[in-house]
C-alpha cells in the first residue's frame, strides 16, 4: 500500500498534464488515419495495407507544396486531392479485378502497393527526413513549457475533418449511396446506384483522409519513407481495439491508446512505449475480441 502511495506521489503532475495534451493531439491524428482505414474496411471489406503509405505520400506532397507555395492550407488541400486521385486509380486498376475473389487477395495486393509506394518515396525523396515548419508559430505557456498553439490547432483540424466526414456520410447524396451499398449491394444496383464507382469513391475518400492526416502530422515530426508502416500498424491496432467498421470506436480507441503511450513515455523511451499499444491489443483479443469500445459484444 505504501509503495502505491509512494508511486502515486512520485508522478510528476505537470508532466502528466503535458503528456495528456500530447496524447490527445497524436490521438486525433491517429483517429483520422484510422477512420479512413475502418471506412474502407467497413464498406468494401478491403484491408488497405497501403494506408500508411498513402499517409506518408500525403505528408511528402504536403512538404513539397508547402516548400513551393509557403501556404499550409494549400498543401493540405492539394495533397488530399492528389492522393484521392491516386487512390481512385489504384482501386480501379488493382482492386476492381479482385471483386468476388477471396478477400485475402486484397491484403496481398495492397501490400504490394505499399511496397511500391514506399520504395518510390525512398527513390524520389531520399532517406533523409523532411520537415514542414510550423504553420502557426505562437506558443502559450503550459506549466514550465512553452506549448505550441499549432499542435492544438492540428488536433482541432483533425476533429473537424472527422466531423465533416461524418456529416457527409449522414446527409449527402453520396453518403446515402454508400450506406445503401453497404446494406444491400444488390438492391443498390437495382436502384441505379453505380456500385463499382461507389467503391472507387470510398477508397478515394479513405485515401484522402490518410493524406490529410499525413500533412497535419508533418509539422510535428520529420517525414520519412518508413513512417507509413508504424502508422498503419497503430491504425490497425486502433481499428481492431475500437471494433472493425465502427467509426466512433476507432476514435475512442485512438485517443485511448495515444494517451496511454504518452503517459508511458514519461518512464520509458518512445521506442519502448509502443509496447503499450501491443499490450492493449493482446488484452482486447483475449477478453473483448469484437472491440473494447463496441457497445454489445456479440
Amino acid at each position, binding site marked *: 500500500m505504501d509503495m502505491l502511495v509512494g508511486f502515486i506521489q512520485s508522478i510528476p503532475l505537470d508532466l502528466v498534464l503535458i503528456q495528456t495534451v500530447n496524447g490527445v493531439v497524436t490521438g486525433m491524428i491517429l483517429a483520422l488515419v484510422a477512420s479512413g482505414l475502418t471506412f474502407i474496411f467497413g464498406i468494401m471489406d478491403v*484491408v488497405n495495407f497501403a494506408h500508411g503509405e498513402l499517409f506518408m505520400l500525403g505528408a511528402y506532397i504536403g512538404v513539397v507544396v508547402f516548400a513551393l507555395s509557403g501556404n499550409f492550407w494549400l498543401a493540405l488541400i492539394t495533397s488530399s486531392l492528389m492522393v484521392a486521385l491516386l487512390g481512385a486509380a489504384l482501386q480501379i486498376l*488493382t482492386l476492381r*479485378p*479482385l471483386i468476388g475473389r*477471396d*478477400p*485475402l*487477395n486484397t*491484403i*496481398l*495486393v495492397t*501490400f*504490394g*502497393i505499399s*511496397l*511500391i509506394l*514506399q*520504395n*518510390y518515396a*525512398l*527513390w524520389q525523396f531520399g532517406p533523409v527526413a523532411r520537415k514542414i515548419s510550423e504553420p502557426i508559430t505562437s506558443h502559450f505557456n503550459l506549466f514550465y513549457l512553452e506549448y505550441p498553439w499549432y499542435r492544438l490547432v492540428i488536433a482541432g483540424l483533425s476533429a473537424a475533418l472527422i466531423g465533416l466526414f461524418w456529416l457527409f456520410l449522414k446527409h449527402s447524396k453520396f453518403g446515402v449511396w454508400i450506406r445503401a451499398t453497404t446494406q444491400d449491394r444488390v438492391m443498390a444496383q437495382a436502384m441505379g446506384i453505380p456500385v463499382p464507382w461507389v467503391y472507387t469513391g470510398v477508397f478515394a475518400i479513405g485515401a484522402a483522409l490518410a493524406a490529410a492526416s499525413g500533412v497535419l502530422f508533418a509539422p510535428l515530426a520529420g517525414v520519412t519513407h518508413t513512417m507509413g*508502416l508504424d502508422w498503419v*500498424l497503430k491504425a*490497425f*491496432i486502433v481499428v*481492431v481495439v475500437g471494433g*472493425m467498421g465502427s467509426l466512433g470506436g476507432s476514435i475512442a480507441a485512438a485517443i485511448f491508446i495515444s494517451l496511454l503511450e504518452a503517459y508511458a513515455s514519461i518512464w520509458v*523511451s518512445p*521506442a*519502448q512505449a*509502443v*509496447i503499450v499499444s*501491443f499490450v492493449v*491489443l*493482446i488484452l482486447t*483479443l*483475449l477478453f473483448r*475480441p469484437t472491440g473494447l469500445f463496441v457497445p454489445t459484444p456479440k
Partner: protein
Amino acid sequence: MTTAPLDKPMSLKRAGLSHNAIFWGGFCVVMALLIVAPLVLPEFWRRFLTEVLIWGLLAMSSDLLIGYTGMISFGHSAFFGLGMYGAAAALLAFSPPNLWLAIGLGLAGAGCAALFVAYFSTRLRDIYFAITTLIFSQIFYVVIFTWTPVTGGENGLIFSRPRLWIPFLYDARFSSATMHWFVLAVVAGSYLMLRRITQSPFGMVLQSIRENEARTRAIGYPVQLYKIVSVMLSGVFAGLAGVLYAIQNEFAAPDFVYFITSGDTVIFNVMGGIGTLVGPIVGAGFFQLIRELLSRLFGDQFPYLIPLGVVFIVMIIFLPQGLLGFARRWLNR
C-alpha cells in the same frame, strides 16, 4: 486462398509413369544439379545459391500456412529472427561453439515464439489473423531492438561459425562448398518432411480447413488445435532457416525480425505458387535473381522493389497460381 495444390503434369502420367516415379525422378535430377553446383559456380553465385535455399526454406515454411491451411501470416520474420538469435545465443554462450546446440536453441526459440503467436492469433480468422501476426512480429522486433544488453540492440550480434561436426563421421571447419551441401541437406530434408506432413491425414485436415473451415469444424475436428500446430510447425521450420542464415553469415541483426522479411516471404510464396512447397523456393530464387539482375543493370540505388512489386501485383490478379502453376498449366497442354 482456395487454390489447391496441383497434380503432376498429365502428359507424363499418360506415358505410363506413376506419380511417385515422376516425383523422385525429378527430385533426384534437381538434387544432383544442386550438389554439383558449388563445384562449378564462382564464389558469388555459390553463396547466392545457398542463400536462395535458405530463403526458400523460410518461404516453404510459410507455404504450410498460406497454401495448405489457408492462413496468410505476416509474422514469419519473428520466427526466422528468433531462430537466428537463438543460434547466436548458443554460439556465444557456449565454448567451443556447437553446431547442434545452435540448431537446438534456435528451434526452441522459434518454437516458443510460434506457440505464443499461435495462441493469440488463431482465435481470429483470415484478415484479423494476418494483422495480428504482423503486429506480433513487430512486438518481437521492438523487444529485440531495444533490449540492447541481451540482444545487442540495433547492432545485433556477431559470432563465429561452429565446426561442421557429425558425430563419428566428420569434424572440420565449414568450407564454402560444405556449407552449401549442409544447407542443401537441411533444406532438402525439410522439404521431404513437409511433403510428408502435407500428404498425411494431418495435412488433409489442414487443407480441409482451408477449403471450408466451418464445415471442418462441424464434422468435429478441433480446428483451433490444428491451426496452432500448423503455426508451430511453420514457425519451427522458419526458425531453422534463421539458424542456417546465422551460421552462414555469422551475424544476427534486428533488421531480419522487421516486417520486411515477412513481406518478402509472402512475395516468394505468391510468385512461386502457393500450396506447392517447391513453388516458394522457385519464387525466392526468381525474386533474388531479378533483384541481382536489376542491380547489375541499373546500379545499386535502383529501387528494384518497384518493378518487382508491379510483377507481384500483376501475378496476384492474373496468375494466382504463381510461376509454378503457370508452368504446370503450360506443361499440361
